[in-house]
């Protein structure tokens, strides 16, 4: 019995580590966008790391309850809800791309535009109405474009190097 349990633990840990190796980079990027921290240098996004670590720990604990569900969805959901819960702690600007936005604007923008979560699904996840999600997203897009306009982020600038953040 105990032997079977440890075997299952090992198997779960292996599956989970493979999942993190594949999806961890993207999830960490999502987390840095949410916390408003810059993606470089390596020590600059400790809050995003802590957020992701907690979300992944929960995902691991719930791994056996997935029942064929998508672990990425689960981890992203955990990340988003955890961020929403501690949003007040992420209000201060920290030099990242989205640090001019409020935490809820960041959350909606990242879920809708980066993670491509549907409007209804975002609304259900955050407990908002679909209209509100649309309004917050539009406001976030407008703010981001207004603040990013001076960075030469016009159409077709995908290949440009990461623009240094302008200090106001």
């Amino acid at each position, binding site marked *: 019995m105990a032997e079977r349990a440890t075997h299952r*633990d090992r198997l779960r*840990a292996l599956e*989970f*580590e493979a999942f*993190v*190796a594949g999806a*961890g*980079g*993207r999830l*960490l*990027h999502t987390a*840095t*966008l949410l916390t408003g921290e810059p*993606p*470089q240098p*390596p020590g600059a*996004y400790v809050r*995003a*790391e802590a957020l*992701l*670590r*907690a979300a*992944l*720990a*929960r*995902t*691991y*604990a719930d*791994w056996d309850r997935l029942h064929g569900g998508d672990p990425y969805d689960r981890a992203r959901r955990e990340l988003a809800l955890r961020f929403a819960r501690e949003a007040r702690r992420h209000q201060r600007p920290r030099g990242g*791309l989205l640090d001019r936005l409020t935490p809820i604007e960041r959350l909606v*923008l*990242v879920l809708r*535009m*980066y993670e491509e979560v549907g409007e209804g699904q975002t609304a259900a996840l955050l407990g908002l109405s679909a209209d509100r999600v649309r309004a917050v997203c539009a406001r976030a*897009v407008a703010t*981001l*474009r207004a603040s*990013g306009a001076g960075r030469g*982020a*016009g*159409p077709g*600038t*995908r290949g440009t190097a*990461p623009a240094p953040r302008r200090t106001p």
Partner: protein
Amino acid sequence: MSADRRDPREEQVRRMLDGPHPALPPDLAAQAVRHGGRRLRLRRAAQRTAGWLLALALVAFLVWIGVEQPWATEPAQVTPPLEGW
């Protein structure tokens, strides 16, 4: 893909969001396994304890019901007064 993908403003924002990615710390998965594993063990221990308590309560109830037999009516202590004979 969908209709909203054609909005050039949203496309621009999507490109901005898809900027340079941070480097994943190598021990992140191991830490998550450690923390999540602790949570899992605690959860299992709590479930086991709850199961034992439930079983114990059931046994206690069965013993009590066997000894006490609450469905049996008590023999009458008071006899009705005997009159008129």
